[in-house]
């Protein structure tokens, strides 16, 4: 376990460096002069050049990169081009909304997805099996932004049960969370089912049967704990990935989260903001993946006790 953890932690630094480098590099490729945008249309070319020199925009690439990393480590993600507001502040203000949505969506996805997969795998009735798998495939294929529109149409426009846009209460979390949860739930259902079916075919299940254990005991003690290990890892990965998927849902439901923030920043060509969101989200994603890896290492005795 120690070696496993150490290895994972060691890779973390280069990966994070790589992430910052890529984010920074893409910014340099972006057409448009941030200083010119900042100073506005009325600024003269000389003035622009003066400010560029002042702010260090003419320094060599690596120096600028180094300065960027230094700033990031001190919590400074720059200022937006539009309102000169601090990017990190804006991100942190919107982050809770995204987290709220993602957490509720993940809970729904786990309960629905793993539950359905379990039933599909263990149930003796063909009907339950095929129904679940068909539903999972459909769930994977529905674009979540379209589903959101449909649900708003039915529950918002026709039935007036929920607000069509905005809305901060818990009631307004349900629809967005459901839309966001559908695809992960489908993935989890399929994975759970296949994982269980695979484990049931393993030799040690046959050994358990040969010892005289009943079906219930075999499933509870041997099958479930082994088949859930890959499922738990995927749950962790999906949770991290949901931060991205929330982009569409936040836009449809006009929720004030970082996904919507990113899109508006891109549309306005406000690159410091875009860069800030990308870096922030990617870092969280990397850290989350690390956490998932460590949990997996702890769950699997072959790694925990090596």
């Amino acid at each position, binding site marked *: 376990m120690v070696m496993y953890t150490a290895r994972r932690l060691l890779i973390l630094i280069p990966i994070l460096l790589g992430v910052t480098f890529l*984010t920074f590099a893409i910014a340099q490729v972006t057409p448009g002069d941030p200083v010119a945008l900042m100073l506005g249309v009325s600024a003269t070319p000389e003035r622009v050049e003066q400010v560029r020199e002042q702010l260090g925009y003419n320094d060599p690439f690596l120096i600028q990169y180094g300065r960027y990393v230094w700033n990031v480590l001190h919590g400074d993600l720059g200022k937006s081009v539009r309102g000169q507001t601090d990017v990190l502040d804006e991100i942190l203000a919107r982050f809770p909304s995204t987290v709220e949505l993602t957490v509720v969506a993940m809970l729904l996805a786990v309960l629905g997805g793993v539950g359905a997969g379990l039933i599909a795998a263990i149930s003796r009735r063909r009907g339950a099996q095929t129904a679940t798998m068909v539903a999972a495939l459909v769930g994977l294929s529905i674009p979540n932004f*379209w589903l959101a529109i449909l649900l708003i149409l039915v529950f918002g426009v026709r039935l007036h049960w929920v607000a069509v846009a905005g809305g901060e209460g818990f009631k307004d979390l349900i629809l967005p969370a459901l839309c966001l949860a559908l695809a992960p739930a489908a993935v989890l259902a399929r994975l759970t089912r296949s994982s269980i079916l695979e484990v049931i075919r393993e030799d040690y299940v046959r050994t358990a049967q040969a010892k005289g254990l009943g079906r219930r005991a075999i499933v509870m003690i041997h099958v479930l704990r082994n088949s859930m290990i890959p499922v738990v890892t995927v749950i962790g990965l999906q949770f991290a990935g949901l931060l991205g998927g929330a982009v569409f849902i936040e836009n449809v439901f006009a929720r004030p989260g970082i996904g919507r923030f990113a*899109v508006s920043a891109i*549309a306005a060509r406000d690159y410091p903001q875009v860069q800030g969101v990308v870096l922030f989200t990617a870092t969280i*994603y*990397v850290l989350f993946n690390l956490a998932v890896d460590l949990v997996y290492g702890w769950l699997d005795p072959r790694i925990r006790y090596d």
Partner: protein
Amino acid sequence: MTELQVGSAERAAAGESLWRSAWRTLRHHPAGMMGLVGFSLVLLLVVLAPVVTPGDPTSMNLGHLLEPPSRLHLFGTDDLGRDILTRVLWGGRESLRVALIAVVVAAIGGVSLGLTAGYFGGRADSILMRLVDVLLAFPTILLVLSIVAALGPNLGTVLIAIGLSFIPNVARFVRGTVLVTKNCEYITAAHLLGATHTYVMLTQILPNILAPLIIYSTLGLGSAIMLTAGLSYLGLGAQPPSPEWGAMLNYGRDYLRDAWWMSVFPGLAIFACVLFINLLGDGLRDAMDPKLRV
């Protein structure tokens, strides 16, 4: 139990190739066939759009604004009197074109990277795989958004962004397959017989990659269609008056109360497409590589 391996042994004895046996299995796979037929139908309709539809997607009929679905306009009309069905079919050309090219770009890029890294190993491998690891440290949507942000929001950028974002995944699994195949004895034998690297790569290793690549690409196509439409929906891809499906959804948002058909049908098209592709992908996976069976 070895008794149960009877099938593949007898097939191999009969000299049946992977492709023929895959097709035979697929033929009896109801879901897979449904996907194949469904997607072919959609493809056909979309390709033949200019022939099949009356008029073109921009022709406005000011006498028929915001009409619900009827016999004349099966999917209704929009606020400028344009026939939604026509626009959906033409929009399919946009959406599918972008998605297909993006997947091909990803396949070519990923295979080149993965093949080079896996086959030659050493420094090339380390460098390339570090790069891939960094790229994979980003959630895909984020990579796509970054590239779109850098190059400007339009459909072409979306194409490049999706294609590039899929490359790391393809490269990774291609490299994995190459590593496994590389150590097989028949490769050593080929080298001993004087085969060049290029020859070995093309004739021995490439066929092994082909089956999983096809499965991956099929499923990737579904993702690509969803991403293309999604980004256009956000206003970052196809711009109005493009009939691209996501752009239509974006446009229809304002008319949700009065003209639900403007939002329902384009989305239905996306859903149908992706569903058929996923069905086909499942069928292909079962047919070509039962080990990957879900």
